């Protein structure tokens, strides 16, 4: 039986790169990404699981990285906002955020992009209602939702 430990080796694929890292078991996934791997595109907004700024993809599905321990992600494939335009070219969605002025202060944007990317993968042409349902876990405290929703609907229609 594997006895309990306070530090553990984690093997994850992050934005296409395989990584092995020894982490304290109490470390949240968001701190592993930001502090250990230097991927500071993933933001910490509320740290209580409400705001969604820390959303990343775990095996293709959006999750809040402040509500997971890094060790829970062992064996998983992670994508952060840095992984979207990995080749330097913005995705259709990112381009659409630019064109529709879908950010004001920009703090929530990484989480919005990750939730919307997952939505478009599931549902390539979402309606406004689909977008609003998919973004329930992402809060924009500038309240700039109208342009965010427009940008996502337009990204779907443009493909």
């Amino acid at each position, binding site marked *: *039986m*594997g*006895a*309990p*430990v*306070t530090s*553990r080796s984690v093997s994850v694929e992050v934005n296409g790169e395989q990584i092995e890292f020894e982490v*304290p*078991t*109490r*470390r*949240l996934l968001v701190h592993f990404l930001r502090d250990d791997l230097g991927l500071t595109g993933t933001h910490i907004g509320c*740290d*209580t*699981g409400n705001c*969604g700024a820390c*959303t990343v993809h*775990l095996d293709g*599905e*959006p*999750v*809040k990285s*402040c*509500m*997971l*321990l890094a*060790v*829970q992600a*062992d064996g998983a494939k992670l994508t952060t906002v840095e992984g979207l335009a990995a080749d330097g070219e913005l995705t259709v969605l990112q381009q659409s955020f630019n064109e529709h002025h879908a950010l004001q202060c920009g703090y929530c944007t990484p989480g919005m992009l990750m*939730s919307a990317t*997952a*939505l478009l993968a599931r549902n390539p042409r979402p309606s406004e209602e689909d977008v609003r*349902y*998919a973004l*329930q*876990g*992402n809060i924009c405290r500038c309240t700039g939702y109208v342009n965010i929703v427009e940008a996502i609907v337009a990204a779907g229609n443009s493909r």
Partner: protein
Amino acid sequence: MLLREVEYARPATVEEAISLLATYDGARPLAGGQTLVNVMKARAAAPDVLVDLADLSELRAIGFSSGGMLEIGSMVTYAQLMGSSEVDVSRPILGEVAATIGDVQVRNRGTIGGNVCVSDPTNHLPPLLVALGATFTIRGQEGERTVPADEFFLGVYMTAVGEGELLTTVNVPPSSGAGDGFAGLTIGKHGTYVVSAAATVAGDSARIAIGCVAASPVRATAMEDSLAGGDFSEAAVRAAAEGLGASLDPPSDVHGSADYRRRLAEVSAVRAVLQAAGRRKS
């Protein structure tokens, strides 16, 4: 946020998980972590050892028993409930209600086992599973036992799952033509419930459970008795709900006074029963 130091184990089998839970003081199962990680941040819970159930694939399955019971592993997520053809043919209300819990990210991680074992009075699934007449399979070192929903929820954060035990399966009877309903008032469209009500109507009888009005779901037995004649017209259901509020002793808080919750309990119960009755196939 930096959590208090915690030990972590990731067992490969259910037996190993139970052995860890029984061996280490202060050991707690970690399912999706959508509640537990947050309460650890708030220092509202301080487990010494987390037993991560992530690798226990047998707890992630949805299937049917030979008797047609829908068997849902405790690690099945809300997203899985929403997308399961087994749930859809047997008890679609489970998928419908799961689709209103939290948000997309929470539904990808949060589990049915976590929802019921937390036994937060405002959670969606406890009253629903009471109305559906679900049973809960609990495994420990001594073996396995099955507890009916009416005896599973013991209080706030307290269930029939004892120390060193693990909830493995939630068993839901086949609908057999019954209709199911769920209603209530939330803070925001899919937010926390102020009061919820779940109902199952099978033939001439109804099972009704009210959430958020006590430490655990409350069966509306007097209302069930009044409906036993099989009249599920709106007037009859409204008449049957009279007195339900007065029989409850709900809390008052910023979201509603006790009196408001009494009133909401009646309104919610009526809506849940009418929805359930309208969905019967008989």
